[in-house]
């Protein structure tokens, strides 16, 4: 399926081409194929969600896109250029806590700038502005363990966005949060995203979250040998409120259509997880 969506020609911001990832098996025999022959593209400015049952290799796919994991075969293209090493044009938001526990909120946000050689004073100025944008003014000196789960996610968001990456890779970033905090964070993410339309590859197992955030939803099969099964354009109007849009008839229609594809995979994944 082709989705140019008003983007003027050129290469996609991020493209995975026929990516296969095989690992040495945990048990005895041979190899475990996590991801098989997956092709996926994110156009500049596009918000793409990837949904799939738990444990289907979604994170593996994201790690390949980030350059943290080299695929067994296939390749990653960033704006048309083959990726080697870590993807320096991408920001990555992890599922679990990735903040440095020995640095306070401010110093965690400045970390990326310090790595790039910016002086601490300059970096701190920018970081304060970013902490304000994510609503954490007054929490600069708190250490990660002194912040709530939602606040830690905000710090992680600021830590990623302060570097102004062209591509955002997000691995179920809000899955550990309670429903209310989660919807707040989703709306904030949409606000921040709509300001400068970065390309987003968002991984989740929550179909509602995927539809309410995205321009396009890709459904993955259950593992092993995960591959895309379907690709759905989400034509809901923006700006959106993630809580309200779930009531709209079009949302329900889309949810119904995608769930038809996803359902059997979820059941397959569930059956596998039982033994």
């Amino acid at each position: 399926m082709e989705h140019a969506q008003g983007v003027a020609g050129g290469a996609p911001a991020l493209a995975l081409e026929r990516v296969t990832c095989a690992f040495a098996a945990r048990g005895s025999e041979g190899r475990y194929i996590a991801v098989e022959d997956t092709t996926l593209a994110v156009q500049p400015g596009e918000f793409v969600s990837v949904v799939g049952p738990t444990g289907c290799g979604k994170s593996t796919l994201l790690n390949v896109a980030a350059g943290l994991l080299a695929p067994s075969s296939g390749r990653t293209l960033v704006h048309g250029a083959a990726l080697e090493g870590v993807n320096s044009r991408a920001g990555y938001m992890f599922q679990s806590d990735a903040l440095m526990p020995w640095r306070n909120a401010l110093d965690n946000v400045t970390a990326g700038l310090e790595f790039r050689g910016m002086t601490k004073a300059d970096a701190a100025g920018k970081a304060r502005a970013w902490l304000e944008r994510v609503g954490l003014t007054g929490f600069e000196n708190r250490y990660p363990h002194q912040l709530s789960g939602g606040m830690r996610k905000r710090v992680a968001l600021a830590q990623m966005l302060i570097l102004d990456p062209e591509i955002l890779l997000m691995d179920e970033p809000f899955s550990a949060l309670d429903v209310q905090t989660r919807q707040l964070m989703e709306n904030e993410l949409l606000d921040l995203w709509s300001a400068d339309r970065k390309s987003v590859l968002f991984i989740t197992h929550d179909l509602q979250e995927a539809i309410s955030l995205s321009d396009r939803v890709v459904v993955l099969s259950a593992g092993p040998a995960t591959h895309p099964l379907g690709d759905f354009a989400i034509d809901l109007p923006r700006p959106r409120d993630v809580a309200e849009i779930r009531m709209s008839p079009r949302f329900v229609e889309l949810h119904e259509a995608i769930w038809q594809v996803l359902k059997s995979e979820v059941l397959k994944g569930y059956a596998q997880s039982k033994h």
Partner: protein
Amino acid sequence: MRRASTDLKTNRGLLAVYQTLLLVALFAIWYVLTETGVLAPFFFGKPLKVLEVIWEWFSGGKIYPHLAITLVETLLAFAAGSVLGLVVGLWLALSPLASALSDPYIKALNAMPRVILAPIFAVWFGLGITSKVALGVTLVFFIVFFNVYQGVKEVSPVVLANARMLGASKNQLLRYIYLPSATSWVFSSLHTSVGMAFVGAVVGEYLGSAKGVGYLILQAEGVFDINTVFAGILVLTVFALLLDFAVTKIESRLLVWRPKTAETEAM
């Protein structure tokens, strides 16, 4: 009865009073046993004489240079052992080849009773401060080394991946991720390593020296002055307690970022 025991646990002032009474009681028992001749004063000393010696040491000022020497040896051994342990620990943890190659030797050196090196150090470095520091270093090094090694191995892979995505180079990973993580493990072993440095200093002095509290004990033992030996032991004990107290203070200042168990689940 139950009420009394809970009172004792909650009321810290009262607890301190009882703790002091316990100490006084122990001295009283010691006093009675040696005065009545149940324990021979020649072997067990006399508590009043012991306290008298301590009083003379402090009022006459004789003890201060010896305490200072022991303290300097302890601190030097701790500092040198920690830095060495930190560097070698980081190096071996990050270099699988070096780690595999040196593994049996590290194990052997750790298994060896290193106090036995004291005579060799005395021959190499003389009876001065250096031989005591060297002994302390061999004791401190392994504690710090194993903690740093563990600390590096247990750096969260997510934190590491995140730092790489934020653009950290190899050197920056070392400086901003591995080093802070390893240092926190060094701090968590602070009590043990300071204690070991102290043991190194005192044992070194005891085995041959010209100064230090260990030297005072050695001298007194040479003339069967058991009261002075006990006085030395008491002074060392109080000194070790003070050292431990100082370490606790430093620790709580350096590890503010560490979650306390009650705080980890804060939402």
